[in-house]
């Protein structure tokens, strides 16, 4: 059945690796009859026939779907949708009628459903861009400079020893030893001063934020 008796067929046939590509070479009428028979046998529970039928219609559905959907993953998804629908309503096929119109009607419903769903999603949702990513970062949204100015002001109000300790240890992030050599203070007094400074700052800033 796969061989065209006219002898001209093979030279015109598309070259493909899979066996299923030979279905394209067949005359549509023969193919339809084949599919009808396969589906009738599938309805009676013949798994092999059903497997062959689904394998043969999948490339056909893919070519139909490619006309409506551009994205490759969409095409594959919608082909699977059609296969599932075919499976769930295989009772409705009447073997005395041609198979292709039945299949195409189901396929078109699924294609259109998918297009509609995509349309709805496009209306409702906006894809995230790099700008949206930026705005997700807290630094991008928070204006920090007033805070910094306020903190500077508070530090300036501290006694000089505490000021120096907090600047060296916290703002410049020096170690205790480095701070001791730079400032000439002992490590113990640096520790005490920075502790007191933080305590004072906490008190000042809390007082300020409370009305």
């Amino acid at each position: 059945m796969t061989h065209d008796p006219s002898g001209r067929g093979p030279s015109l046939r598309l070259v493909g690796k899979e066996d299923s590509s030979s279905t394209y070479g067949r005359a549509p009428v023969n193919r339809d009859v084949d599919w009808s028979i396969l589906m009738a046998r599938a309805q009676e529970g013949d798994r092999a026939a059903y497997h062959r039928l689904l394998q043969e219609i999948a490339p056909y559905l893919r070519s139909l779907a490619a006309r409506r959907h551009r994205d490759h993953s969409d095409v594959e998804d919608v082909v699977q949708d059609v296969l599932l629908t075919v499976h769930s309503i295989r009772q409705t096929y009447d073997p005395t009628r041609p198979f292709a119109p039945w299949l195409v009607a189901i396929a078109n419903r699924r294609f259109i459903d998918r297009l509609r769903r995509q349309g709805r999603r496009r209306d409702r949702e906006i894809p995230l861009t790099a700008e949206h990513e930026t705005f997700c970062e807290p630094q991008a949204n928070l204006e920090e400079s007033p805070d910094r100015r306020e903190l500077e002001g508070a530090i300036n109000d501290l006694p000089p020893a505490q000021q120096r300790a907090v600047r060296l240890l916290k703002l410049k992030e020096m170690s205790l030893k480095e701070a001791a050599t730079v400032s000439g203070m002992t490590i113990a007094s640096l520790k005490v001063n920075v502790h007191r400074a933080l305590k004072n700052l906490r008190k000042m800033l809390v007082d300020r934020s409370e009305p």
Partner: protein
Amino acid sequence: MIKTPDLIASLAENATPVRRLRPPVVRAACWLLLAAVVLTLLAVNQGLRPDLVQRLSEPAFAVSMTASLLTGVLAAVAAFLVSLPDRSRLWLLQPLPALVAWLANVGYQCLVQWVAIGPDGISLGEAARCFATLVLTSLPLSLAMLVMLRYAAPLRPTAATFMGSLAVAAITATALSLFHTIDATAMILMWNFGTAVLFVGLAGVFGRRMFRWVAPRTFYARD
């Protein structure tokens, strides 16, 4: 996402034998038989309206009855045809002539012999009994229609529910005029047109949800 060849393999694995649906006209006939049984049971239980024979000789009433019955029959056939994937959508137009005749007739009656609803024109008792008939006829018929049309759920849910509910509405309206003396034209209009609107409206609101409930599982499992 599952690969298509895997999906095909698993579907083929699940290919249990299925019973083919009977031809749509036969299925419609089955449903109409159920309708006839329901109406007969109601007739035995409630009794026909006393002046039925006399009223049937009036052309307006006879035409209205015939048209509503015909609408029911044609809409049922159309519903079963449309529920199949490879039948034309144009079948939806099939009950249209009968529907137009029915509604036009009701409207015409309303226009020519408007009867004001007097103190005895409408009584609560009659309305309640009308309502009982409405529920008793439409409930079993709607459920049967819903189950019989479940394969249309992934295909043309709206068209199928519309036709199905039109069939139920028309049969129910016929039942109402068989069993109840609803002579005040306002009542006729209300019960005929109201029934139709009620069922088509209910189908519009709940149709899809109900379909989901009875529909074949494999398809909706993915959504």
